[in-house]
């Protein structure tokens, strides 16, 4: 794949080191490695320096397109470990890191200048002004909070020259705690951990309201799916897309990436950014999200809702709620 001439880029977030051999690096432009919510999650490269080193060795010649997602809201007693992780990443030539707070961006910029910095969706970067501050600290790209609607994201995109990685598929994180809820008595991490978080748990609030818990994080119970809205996103000038694979089976990720490449290329080749022939929704994606799809907050709706774009009788594209 000729990255220089590509009109768009795709990034993929995965949480477990053992999935790395199955990642097809030729199909992605950026790999975001690691589960930032709980380093104790089985297989998480952030779990130990040995595992991190092993993971980086598995990546081999693709280090220039790999970033590691650092732990979210680290406590004071975790900072020295993070320092060791950053030293290792810098020494081994990893492209960069994903940070989740401006403080961490400042730390990486001052102490590890070789590492490129990106911010994650929980870094609270809500406005153009925040992006500017991040840029001043050497941050080159990032994922804006999921709470922003598409108009806000477009406003930021148009007002500042910056890589905005727009999530287009996958269960997305909606909350994070220092507590692991499924531990008896809600024991605070990291005093005790039986790796119960290796299993996802569906929490049902009734009336169809559900969320997916995994360890200390809560994810959407449906996959965010912007496939039908790709023409709109491309039309607005977005070119960096993110597939959120943290709690998806690694084996399925290549197929998901393929489906998005196929559709994006078709839209770009035909130049038709309004009427892609996309089955609604793509049946190949349905198997990865058995509880249906959602659009998060892109359309200023409840996050679990799915908004579909439809061709109306007058040939105009409309949203169907």
């Amino acid at each position: 794949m000729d990255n220089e001439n590509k009109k768009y880029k795709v990034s993929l977030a995965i949480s477990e080191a053992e999935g790395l051999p199955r990642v097809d690096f030729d199909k992605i432009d950026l790999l975001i490695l690691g589960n930032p919510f709980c380093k104790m999650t089985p297989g998480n490269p952030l779990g130990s320096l040995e595992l991190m080193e092993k993971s980086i060795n598995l990546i081999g010649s693709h280090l220039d397109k790999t970033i590691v997602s650092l732990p979210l809201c680290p406590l004071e007693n975790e900072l020295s470990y993070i320092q060791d992780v950053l030293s290792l990443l810098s020494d081994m030539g990893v492209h960069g890191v994903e940070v989740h707070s401006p403080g961490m961006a400042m730390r990486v910029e001052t102490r590890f200048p070789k590492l490129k910095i990106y911010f994650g969706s929980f870094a609270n970067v809500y406005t153009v002004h925040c992006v500017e501050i991040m840029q001043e600290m050497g941050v080159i790209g990032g994922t804006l909070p999921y709470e922003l609607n598409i108009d806000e994201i477009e406003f930021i995109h148009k007002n500042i020259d910056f890589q905005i990685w727009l999530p287009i598929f996958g269960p997305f994180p909606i909350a994070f705690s220092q507590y692991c809820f499924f531990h008896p008595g809600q024991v605070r991490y990291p005093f005790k951990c039986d790796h119960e978080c290796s299993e996802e748990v569906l929490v049902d609030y009734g009336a169809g309201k559900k969320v997916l818990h995994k360890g200390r994080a809560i994810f959407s119970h449906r996959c965010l799916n912007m496939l039908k809205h790709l023409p709109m996103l491309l039309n607005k000038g977005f070119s960096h897309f993110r597939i959120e694979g943290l709690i998806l089976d690694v084996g399925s990720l290549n197929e998901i990436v393929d489906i998005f490449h196929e559709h994006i290329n078709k839209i770009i080749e035909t130049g038709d950014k309004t009427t892609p022939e996309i089955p609604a929704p793509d049946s190949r994606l349905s198997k990865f999200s058995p509880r249906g799809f959602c659009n998060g907050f892109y359309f200023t709706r409840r996050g679990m809702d799915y908004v579909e774009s439809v061709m109306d009788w007058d040939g105009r594209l409309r949203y169907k709620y």
Partner: protein
Amino acid sequence: MNKPKILAPVSSLEMARTVLENGADIVYAGVKGWSLRPNMFEVKNDEMGEIIKLVKSYNKKIFLAMNCFYRSTEIPKAIGIIKHFYSAGIDGVITSEYGLISLIRKKFPDLQVHVSVQTSASSSIDMAFYKKMGVTSLVLPRDMLDLSIDNIRELAGKGVTIEVFAVGDDSSHYDGRCMLSAYLFQKALPDDSTGREELIVGNANRCGYCYLACKRKCSIESKTGKLLKRGDLSLHRRIPELIKAGVGVFKVQGREFPLHLVGKLIAAFRGLLDNIDDPDKRSGYISVLDDLVELKQIIASNHLWLLAKSQSPTWKKLRKYIEKPWDNLTTGLWLKGKGKTLIRKIGRMI
């Protein structure tokens, strides 16, 4: 060592007078639509002006709560609001948005900037960033308040005044990083009355309403329960060690709570801080706070605060009962018996 201060909530002129008379050092209030509380517990612009005058007459300080994550296009409006109340005499701004912090520092260099709990600043590296930005104080995330005292001591030595929630709602997730309400309950409503472009009901980080999903009943594999089993947050029993660790400000959260309760809470915290070195008096105030905090929890867990500003007959009836025993601060027995049953009963009626 500087004497720690009490930061008190204000949702009306009457509440401002009450907390000041009971010993608050600093008060905070938000104007309609622009702070992290339902609209009815924020104040109108003209009332805010009156509150500022009142606070100044007591020679105390007032912070304007501007602690939501605004849209890029709302930032100029937010600056306009801060400018207006800066002229009126506010001493500081509580905010979460580091873009806004940067602008405040440039435009109003003598205004204190207080970092809201929404930022979830959890370590000294975040502290270093906010110090560089010129903030004066920072509140620790609720999620880390039962950490070891060493952790808090470490943070308190970094040159930014540390504040903790002395009493407040508990939250199962990091503030500012929870979209649970918005994911499950969100509605979007245009809201012309507040000047915000669109009020997103349920989008708690952005001035919407937190539906406390983590405290609601849910089911997991046919078992029913609540994820957050803990009661509301209260650190009054840990105040002596927190003072030793270097905490400079104790925040009492509760703009939405009844005036009477907030007043009594502030009075009890004032008494505790003023008598921190006297073991007998200290334990007396802690005992009073035990009762008040329990009452606050009952009101919060039954959503009774929703009635606090209404004139509904239910609230009037409840108020008649709950005000009487507070007069002599003997809420304990009443709460554990008749009062508790009554409040729970009324709570179920809402």
